[in-house]
C-alpha cells in the first residue's frame, strides 16, 4: 500500500523532471534582430572518446586536444587550408642557426581573462611544462635549452639540438600558451582553462559533456556566430548516428563506414571525409631471431602476399587509402613510391622457399576494432598460404609495453600497429623506426637507418632532403621490410546540412574554431 504511494510519488517526480528537462532543451532562435542571418545558438558535437581535462599539458589524447584546440592556441599550427605549418600566436620566426631561433608574437592577443599575451606568458608556459612533471610536453621541454625574453613580444629560443624544423615543435598540441596572470589571480584549475582561443570553457560534466561559450572579445579569430559549443561523449558510433538523425546533435565524429552513404544521401545531413595521417602497418619483431619473421625472405613474402585491398574492405569497409610507403601522404617529403605490389604467386614461392608453409606464427595486437578486424583478415589471408596465425589481443597499454620492451625476449613475432606522426617528415621516422625511438614496435636497430634519419633532419637544402627521405622510404619498404604498410584510414564527420566550420584534421585534432549553422527565417 505504502509502497505503491512511494512508487507513484517517485514517478511523479521523475515526470516533473522530464518536463523540466524537456523545456530546457528547447532550442531558442538566436537573439539577433530579425531580418539578419540567424545562427543556431548551440552546436552539439558528438565525440566518441572521453574528454577528461582542459589542461593541455596533461594529455595527448585527441579527444582532449580537440576541445583544447577551441580554447587554447599554439605558437604555430597546421593550417588546414594550405596543409602546412603556419603562424598562430607567433607572428613570425627566424632561424638564426639550426639551434637558435627568434620568434615574434602577435600583438594585442587577448586571453579569456582579459589580459594581453606577451613573452612572459610563453616563458611561464614553458616553466610550467618543466615543473609540471608528468604528462608534460617533453618534446618541447627536451628541445628547448633556454628562452630569452627580448621584449614583450619578442624572444629567442636556444635549442639543445640543432633542428631545422623547430617551427613544427612549436605546434606541439601540449604546448598551448597559458596566461601567467590568470595563474597569479585564480586557482590553478580555473586558470588552466584560460586561453586565447575563440571559445571559453564553461562547464564539464564528467563522462557526459563539456560546454564552451564564445569568447566575445576574441582578437585572434573572428568571434563565432554560435553562442555555445558542446561536445557530448557518445562512445557508440551507431548511437552517435541515431543522435544526429534525431536532431540531438549537430555533428558526429567518426560515423560507421556503413553510414557514410546514408549521411551523404539523406536530406538535411552531410558527410565530410578526409584521410587520416595515421599509418597502419604490420610490424615484424626484428630482434626475435628465434622466429621466422627475422628471415628477410619471409617478410618479403608477406609483403607480396598481403592483399591490402581486401584488408581495407575488412577493416574499414573499404574506406581507407592503400599505402605503398611507410610515410603518410600529407607529411612533408612524401614521395609516391611503388613499394611492393600484391603478387600472390610470388609470395607462394617465397613462403615455400623460406619454409614458412605449415608454420604457426603468433600475432599480437590491441583490442581496437579495426585492429581486431585486420588481424582476423591477416590470419585468413595467411591461411591461404598454409600459414597458421594465432591472434592474441591485449589492451593498448599492455601492447605498448610489450612492443617497447626488449624484442629479443618479448616473444613477439608480428604485431599490427599504427603511427600518427606530426606534420614534418622526421616524426614519420624517429619514433617508430629510429633505434632510440619511443615507439619502435618493429624493434629496428639499424645504424644505417639511424644515420639516414639523423642526416635527413639536419639537411638544410630542401631538394637534397627530399632525396634523402625518398631513399629512406624505399629502403624501409622494399629492403628492410620491418613494416608492411597497410593504409591510411578515412576520417569522417557527419553533420547537419548547412553546418560550416567543422574541419577534419589529418592528425585527428579536428578543428571547430568557426563552427556555425545558419538557420532559415
Amino acid at each position, binding site marked *: 500500500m505504502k509502497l505503491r504511494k512511494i512508487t507513484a510519488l517517485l*514517478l511523479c517526480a*521523475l515526470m516533473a523532471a522530464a518536463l523540466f528537462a524537456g523545456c530546457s532543451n528547447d532550442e531558442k532562435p538566436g537573439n539577433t534582430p530579425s531580418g539578419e542571418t540567424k545562427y543556431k545558438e548551440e552546436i552539439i558535437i558528438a565525440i566518441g572518446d572521453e574528454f*577528461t581535462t582542459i589542461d593541455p599539458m596533461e594529455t595527448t589524447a585527441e579527444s582532449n586536444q580537440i576541445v583544447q584546440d577551441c580554447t587554447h592556441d599554439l605558437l604555430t599550427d597546421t593550417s588546414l587550408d594550405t596543409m602546412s605549418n603556419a603562424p598562430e600566436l607567433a607572428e613570425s620566426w627566424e632561424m638564426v642557426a639550426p639551434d637558435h631561433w627568434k620568434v615574434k608574437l602577435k600583438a594585442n592577443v587577448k586571453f579569456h581573462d582579459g589580459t594581453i599575451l606577451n613573452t612572459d606568458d610563453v616563458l611561464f608556459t614553458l616553466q610550467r611544462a618543466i615543473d609540471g612533471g608528468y604528462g608534460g610536453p617533453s618534446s618541447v621541454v627536451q628541445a628547448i635549452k633556454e628562452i630569452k625574453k627580448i621584449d614583450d613580444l619578442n624572444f629567442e629560443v636556444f635549442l639543445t639540438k640543432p633542428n631545422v624544423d623547430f617551427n613544427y615543435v612549436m605546434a606541439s598540441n601540449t604546448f598551448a600558451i597559458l596566461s601567467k596572470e590568470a595563474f597569479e589571480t585564480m586557482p590553478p584549475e580555473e586558470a588552466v582553462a584560460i586561453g586565447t582561443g575563440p571559445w571559453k570553457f564553461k562547464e564539464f560534466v564528467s563522462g557526459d559533456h563539456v560546454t564552451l561559450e564564445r569568447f566575445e572579445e576574441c582578437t585572434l579569430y573572428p568571434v563565432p556566430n554560435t553562442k555555445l559549443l558542446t561536445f557530448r561523449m557518445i562512445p557508440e558510433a551507431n548511437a552517435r548516428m541515431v543522435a544526429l538523425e534525431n536532431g540531438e546533435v549537430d555533428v558526429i565524429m567518426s560515423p560507421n563506414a556503413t553510414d557514410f552513404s546514408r549521411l551523404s544521401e539523406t536530406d538535411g545531413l552531410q558527410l565530410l571525409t578526409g584521410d587520416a595521417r595515421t599509418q597502419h602497418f604490420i610490424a615484424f619483431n626484428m630482434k626475435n631471431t628465434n622466429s621466422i619473421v627475422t628471415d628477410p625472405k619471409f617478410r618479403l613474402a608477406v609483403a607480396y602476399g598481403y592483399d591490402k585491398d581486401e584488408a581495407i574492405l575488412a577493416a574499414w569497409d573499404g574506406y581507407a587509402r592503400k599505402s605503398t610507403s611507410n610515410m603518410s601522404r600529407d607529411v612533408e617529403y612524401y614521395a609516391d613510391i611503388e613499394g611492393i605490389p600484391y603478387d600472390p604467386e610470388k609470395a607462394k614461392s617465397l613462403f615455400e622457399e623460406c619454409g614458412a608453409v605449415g608454420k604457426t606464427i603468433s600475432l599480437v595486437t590491441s583490442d581496437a576494432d579495426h585492429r581486431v578486424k585486420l588481424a582476423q583478415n591477416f590470419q585468413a589471408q595467411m591461411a591461404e598460404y598454409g600459414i597458421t596465425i594465432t591472434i592474441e589481443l591485449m589492451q593498448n597499454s599492455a601492447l605498448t609495453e610489450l612492443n617497447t620492451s626488449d624484442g629479443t625476449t618479448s616473444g613477439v613475432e608480428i604485431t599490427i600497429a599504427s603511427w600518427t606522426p606530426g606534420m614534418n617528415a622526421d616524426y614519420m621516422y624517429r619514433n617508430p623506426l629510429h633505434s632510440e625511438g619511443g615507439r619502435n614496435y618493429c624493434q629496428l636497430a639499424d645504424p644505417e637507418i639511424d644515420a639516414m634519419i639523423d642526416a635527413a633532419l639536419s639537411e638544410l637544402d630542401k631538394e637534397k632532403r627530399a632525396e634523402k627521405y625518398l631513399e629512406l622510404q624505399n629502403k624501409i619498404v622494399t629492403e628492410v621490410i620491418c613494416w608492411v604498410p597497410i593504409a591510411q584510414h578515412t576520417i569522417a564527420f557527419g553533420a547537419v546540412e548547412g553546418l560550416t566550420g567543422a574541419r577534419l584534421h589529418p592528425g585527428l585534432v579536428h578543428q571547430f574554431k568557426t563552427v556555425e549553422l545558419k538557420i532559415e527565417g
Partner: protein
Amino acid sequence: MIRYVLKRILMMIPVLLAVSFVVYFLMDLAPGDIVMQLAPTDATAEQIEQLRKDLGLDGPLLTRYFRYVGNLLKGDLGQSLSQNRPVMELFMDRFPATVKLAVGSLIVAIGISFPLGIAAATHHRSWLDGSSMVTAMIGVSMPSFWLGLLLIMLFASKLNLLPSGGDSGFLSLILPAITLGANQAGSLTRTVRSSMLDVIRQDYLRTARAKGVSEKQVIRKHALKNALIPILTVLGSTLGNALGGSVTVEAVFAWPGVGRLTVSAINNRDMTLATGCIIMFTLMLNLTLLAVDIAYAFVDPRIRARYSK
C-alpha cells in the same frame, strides 16, 4: 539500534581493505604501464623513472600498497593517475548518473515484478503462473546489452521517440532504465512469487479472509507485508549492484556512470582510480545491505524486537 549500525559499519572496514588489496594486486599484475602511457612518446628513460617516482609508483608492490592504504585509512582515495584529479572527485562526478540509473531501473523492475510475481503466486500453477515465470526467465536470460541495442534500434532509430544515449533528462533515462530493469525484474519476479507463495499458504491469510477482508486487501495488505523480507533482501542487493554501475548498459547507452569510468580506469591501468572506484562500490553495496537490514525492522516487528535487545 545505533550500536548495531555502528558495529556493522566498523565491520565493513576490513572488507574494504581486503577489496582494495585484491584490486590493487590485480592491477599491479596487469601488463601495461601507465607511466609509459603518460610519458610522451619521446621521453627518455630518466624522465620515465622520474615520472614513476612523481606518481608514487616506484618501489615494490607492498610498499606502494601500504602507502596507498595509509592514505585510504585517512579517507583519501588518492589522485587519479590518468586524469590528475582526486579519485573521490572523479567518482562523485559520475555517481549521480549511476544513482539515477539504479533507481530508475529499480522502479522499472518493481513495476514489472510485483504485479507479475503476485499474479503468478495467487494463480499458482495456472497458465498465468507459467507464462509469468517464463517471462521472468526470459528477462533474466536476455543479455542486457543486446536488449539495449534492440531498444535503441526500435525507439531511437526507427520510431525516433527517445534519445539513444547520454544523460539529458528524464527521456534519456527511459531506455537504459528499461534495459537494466528488465534484467533485474527477472530475478525479482521469482523472488516475489516464491515469497508470496510461502506467505499465501499461511493460516493468517485464512483468518483475514474469514474476517471478511477482501481478496485484494488480503494480498496487498496481509500477504505482501509478510512477503516483503526476502523481497527486500533481493531488492537491496539489486540496488547495491546497480550502484556499482552496469558496465554493459552504460556502454550501450553512453550513460556517464561509474561503471564506464572504472572500466576505462582498468584499461588505462589507472590503479588508484580503479581501486578507488571499486572500494566505493563495495562501500555502497554494504551500505545498501545495511539499509535493507534496517528496513527489515520497519517491516517485521520480530526483527525490530531483536535489534532493540
